[in-house]
């Protein structure tokens, strides 16, 4: 008598397998972000079983990196996550620097930090836009994507590329800020801060959004750690953990990073978490710009094309907008890495949580659930 409806549905499915039908959610589905799929077994509009269908974006990164020179791989790594590429470069370079046991100049650290945070902003804008699109609010998506372009323009000015910047190199960064860049960056930050009010009205304070996302895909505080969630998803469940504070890299030790946590753990909390971290990121960039020292921007490691890294291994991790990006680099002392292994942040959410959450969920909510967890398929597939 106390059975929940979904429990009864699974009973029905056992009794009569003709009640079940299958729906293909992805890879080419308007609600799917990226090239990824779930094969959903459904009764009515409720999901009873899910089979994740990954690997559409598998390029064999880890194999390709073994074929290329240390510095050539800088071009390859950002491509693992299109939405938020810079953490990859920084993690890879940090791992190399760890094996080399060198410390890069302070200004380089700050420049890396600023690019990381700018990348975080752009990724958050994209993530919020994806969430808005998943619930049908295309106006917010339009405006957010256009605002993201302001950051991409800055990136283009700084690094010469809109999306794949290849800015960090072993030993530092490629080039210094141009004249007027900082002023422009301040302006963009002010603009984004003003826009945040509009986003609130459109998206985060919208009662319909609250109705739809409240209680969706709840992750408890303990489960979030147990399942290996990282980043905003972890913090939205009430765990005050952030790689930037716990295992600081780049210039974060010099900056006062405020870790935002919320209790709640559902999709709405995660959406608001992103919005709060977005605001905090703007402030963090301002603080970083204020405290940035003058000086060298890279170490002289000789001819980078002929860079040899001594035998050894290191794991470097970076807090990306989606969570912990980790690079495990093994060197045999040669011109090329012996093995590079990548830890993408989306795997626990995209594969494990999908199997935990999607059953008992309605088909209505799959896209919004994915967007709220910021699942980025390329870093699952690698």
């Amino acid at each position: 008598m106390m059975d929940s409806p979904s429990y009864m549905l699974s009973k029905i499915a056992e009794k009569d397998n003709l009640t079940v039908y299958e729906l293909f959610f992805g890879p080419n589905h308007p609600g799917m972000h990226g090239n990824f799929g779930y094969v959903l077994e459904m009764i009515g509009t409720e999901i009873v079983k899910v089979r994740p269908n990954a690997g559409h974006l598998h390029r064999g990164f880890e194999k390709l990196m073994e074929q290329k020179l240390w510095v050539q791989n800088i071009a390859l790594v950002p491509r693992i996550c299109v939405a938020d590429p810079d953490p990859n470069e920084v993690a890879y370079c940090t791992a190399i620097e760890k094996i080399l046991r060198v410390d890069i100049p302070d200004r380089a650290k700050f420049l890396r930090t600023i690019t990381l945070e700018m990348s975080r902003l752009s990724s958050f804008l994209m993530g919020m836009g994806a969430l808005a699109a998943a619930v049908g609010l295309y106006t917010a998506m339009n405006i957010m994507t256009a605002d993201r372009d302001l950051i991409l323009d800055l990136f283009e000015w700084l690094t010469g590329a809109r999306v794949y910047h290849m800015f960090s190199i072993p030993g530092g960064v490629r080039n210094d800020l141009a004249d007027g860049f900082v002023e422009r960056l301040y302006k963009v930050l002010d603009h984004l801060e003003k826009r945040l009010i509009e986003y609130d009205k459109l998206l985060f304070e919208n009662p319909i959004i609250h109705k739809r996302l409240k209680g969706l895909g709840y992750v408890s505080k303990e489960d979030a750690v147990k399942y290996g969630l990282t980043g905003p998803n972890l913090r939205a469940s009430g765990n005050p953990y952030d790689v930037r504070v716990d295992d600081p890299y780049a210039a974060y030790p010099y900056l006062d990073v405020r870790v935002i946590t919320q209790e709640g753990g559902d999709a709405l909390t995660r959406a608001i978490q992103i919005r709060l971290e977005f605001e905090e990121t703007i402030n963090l960039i301002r603080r970083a710009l204020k405290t940035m020292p003058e000086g060298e921007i890279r170490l002289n490691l000789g001819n980078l094309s002929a860079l040899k890294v001594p035998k050894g291994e290191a794991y470097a991790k970076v807090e990306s907008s989606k969570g912990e990006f980790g690079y495990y680099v093994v060197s045999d002392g040669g011109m090329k890495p012996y093995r590079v292994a990548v830890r993408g942040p989306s795997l626990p959410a995209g594969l494990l949580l999908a199997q935990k959450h999607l059953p008992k969920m309605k088909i209505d909510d799959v896209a919004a659930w994915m967007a709220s967890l910021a699942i980025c398929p390329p870093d699952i597939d690698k």
Partner: protein
Amino acid sequence: MEDLKANDKRSYIDNLIDFFRKRSIWMLHYCTGCGAVELPPSMTSRWDIERFGIVPMATPRQADVLLVTGYVSLKTLKRIIKIYEQMPEPKWVLAFGSCTVNGGIYWDSYNTITNLAEYIPVDITVSGCMPRPEAVIDALQTLMEMIQSGEGGAYKKYKENYEYYKKNQDRVLRKTAPILGSSETESIYQEKEGNYET
């Protein structure tokens, strides 16, 4: 001269239809690879390709243009072919980035194809790794011109040379007997673990 003659045959009706087609391109956006990330900017407020009547569509039945936005892994290729075949005619294919021409940065990867045009006919390839929104818009405008002049018709090529495409598809998707790997290694792995299916 021959080209001119071909143009002469086109009646007003044809021109009108091509005008409609040109001004209302609906695209199906197969979001493989990096190019996908530059499509939202081109579709939204800043570049706004909807002013040319170009809108994204949900399913292949509704779409005129298939956008393959980057490298194509084997698993994706299979789906792309299925979707391409599901699209009604006339249809066009836009391939993004160098990955679809020669494999780009992934040219030596074991899981990405090098030249998309071997498997489905590609009308326009957009250069760049990855193409900027301007390049995307330029490609779409080129496509519009091609449609108006009656050039864009790679889908006809697919019908005519179906065997050629089919052969290539089957080869890489391994629908036929296994042609890869020496028979020795294969047998070793079959003995060791049953999970590797031939």
